């Protein structure tokens, strides 16, 4: 006859009250769980997105968040220098431009054109066709197109298209370049409404009608033995005028600036849900204790200790809160899926970015917060029974 067993029997006896409490806590808990998933989810998803390309250091020409890109002067030569560093395993040059793409049917779309020196395993998954060729002489302008764009223009691997680059801030009259679609891909960083294409740096140079083009982003893979922090230090020694960030640095920068808003919202809403859960369970337990004062006074008169009665109440609280908190996990998970789909419709966000990401850490925090809530909700009823005057209560029960 443990306190838990007695609490379970009490909970079963007052079934309707228990079911209402569990449902209430489950609904509140689902919201709390979602807030916890949201507070770290975007960051975790962003970190996952950064790490998915296989590069752990980013070099840009500007300070602050590595979003605004300036061309990196002498990037081709710099890439060769960096590849020679013992801390660096690989370097890729990236240049992003706006462009217009025409299919053979003369249908056009404005696209984001990514020029890259990476010819395999880039930040995309191939849906159909092949990756960019390693040998630039085999194809003048090989092109990877996003699945959405391929569907929109009706192009497939092997299709011929024409592309005309429109450099930012420049009134352009560049002639279109004939390209061949080598593959249809899903770009990791492409946003929902964005049409993206990728080609080789050589092809981009031709499209821009320039001899050499500077990258505006360099991706570096550090040597596993050295790690990204050592690679960043080595890069800064070579080119102190540039900004090199490890993926952790980028995530930390976004955490400080870009995602603070979500954390604050999540903190405020989490706190509110905890207060609601506390009020719900504390009220139910207090009402229940007030209805059972005679019974409790009689138990005390029979020699059942204050500690035992307090622990029964604590277990009752734990059962109600625990039951609700457990139910809250699948409920919150389903709600998170729906909310995530809704939020990902926001324009300009990479398709692979998620707002709600399952993390065991969120489950642990959820459990810890509800543990505290259960204890706090039981505190007042426990105090009420601990200071219950036995004789006066028994007298009142008989007179009443």
């Amino acid at each position: 006859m443990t306190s838990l067993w007695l609490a379970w029997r009490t909970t079963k006896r007052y079934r309707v009250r228990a079911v209402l409490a569990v449902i209430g806590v489950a609904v509140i808990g689902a919201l709390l769980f979602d807030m916890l998933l949201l507070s770290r989810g975007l960051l975790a998803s962003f970190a996952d997105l950064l790490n998915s390309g296989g590069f752990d250091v980013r070099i840009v020409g500007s300070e602050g968040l590595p979003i605004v890109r300036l061309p990196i002067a002498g990037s081709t030569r710099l890439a060769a220098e960096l590849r020679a560093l013992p801390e660096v395993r690989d370097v890729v040059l990236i240049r992003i431009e706006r462009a217009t793409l025409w299919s053979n049917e003369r249908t056009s779309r404005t696209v984001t054109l990514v020029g890259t020196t990476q010819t395999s395993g880039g930040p995309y998954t191939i849906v159909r066709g092949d990756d960019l060729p390693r040998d630039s002489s085999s194809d003048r302008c090989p092109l990877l197109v996003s699945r959405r764009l391929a569907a929109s223009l009706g192009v497939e691997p092997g299709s011929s298209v024409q592309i005309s680059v429109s450099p930012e801030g420049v009134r352009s009259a560049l002639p279109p370049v004939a390209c061949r679609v080598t593959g249809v891909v899903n770009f990791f960083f492409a946003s929902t409404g964005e049409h993206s294409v990728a080609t080789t740096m050589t092809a981009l140079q031709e499209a821009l009608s320039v001899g050499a083009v500077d990258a505006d982003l360099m991706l570096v893979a550090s040597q596993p033995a050295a790690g990204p922090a050592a690679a960043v230090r080595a890069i800064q020694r070579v080119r102190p005028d540039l900004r090199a960030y490890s993926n952790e640095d980028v995530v930390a920068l976004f955490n400080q600036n870009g995602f603070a808003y979500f954390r604050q919202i999540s903190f405020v809403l989490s706190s509110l849900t905890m207060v609601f859960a506390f009020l719900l369970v504390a009220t139910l337990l207090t009402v229940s204790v007030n209805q059972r004062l005679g019974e409790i006074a009689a138990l005390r008169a029979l020699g059942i200790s204050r500690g035992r009665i307090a622990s029964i109440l604590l277990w009752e609280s734990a059962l109600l809160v625990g039951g609700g908190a457990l139910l809250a996990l699948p409920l919150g998970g389903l709600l998170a899926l729906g909310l995530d789909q809704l939020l990902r419709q926001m324009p300009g966000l990479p398709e692979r970015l998620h707002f709600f990401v399952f993390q065991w850490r969120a489950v642990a925090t959820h459990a810890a917060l509800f543990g505290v809530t259960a204890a706090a909700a039981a505190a007042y009823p426990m105090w009420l029974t601990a200071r219950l005057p036995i004789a006066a209560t028994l007298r009142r029960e008989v007179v009443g």
Partner: protein
Amino acid sequence: MAVVEARRVTRLFPMAAGPVAAVRDVSLSVGDGEYVAVSGPSGCGKSTLLHLVGVVDQPTSGEILFDARDVAALTEAERSRIRLVRIGFVFQRFFLLPMLTAGENIELPQAEARVPVADRRARTRELLEYVGLADRADHLPSQLSGGEMQRVAIARALANRPALLVADEPTGELDEQTGEHIADLFDRVHADGTAILVVTHNPVLAARASRRLTMKSGSLVS
């Protein structure tokens, strides 16, 4: 030897118009195996005296000695322990736990006293037979009549073999015939050597006691 002794106890209750004495300068002793009944009109202080002797309340002045120990000098845990193992309480309204069966209600004080499971199961069976409810062990209080509930409550009070059984109007909620059955049961408990202090309006029950006392306006008058 006295199981419990009240020495010149007074119990005042604070009221808006000034303190009211529910019990005034009362001395009472209940000896080992004695059967004492206290009667008197409503509000004369019978239940208050019972609560003082049953160690659930403390006198404003005077002393309560249980097993020759001054109750006022004990901690709440020690008083609770006395109530658990030395006193059995029977209430007018039974106060059985509604979510436990008759058997489990009787087991509860034994579990609190850390009686091993096998021993307490055996004691519970014995007590259910003693009160004539061997076939009702698995029934919830809501499935029992008033008389059956009071018999379970008496069995619960006897679970830890107390030296003193205190009963506050144990027949107050029962009809005459059922009240007589309870009185018979008290006779058996007394015959088995347990001291009884019963507060009652029921003359049939009071007549069974070996010593009958009357209270009036907070004082024992006979």
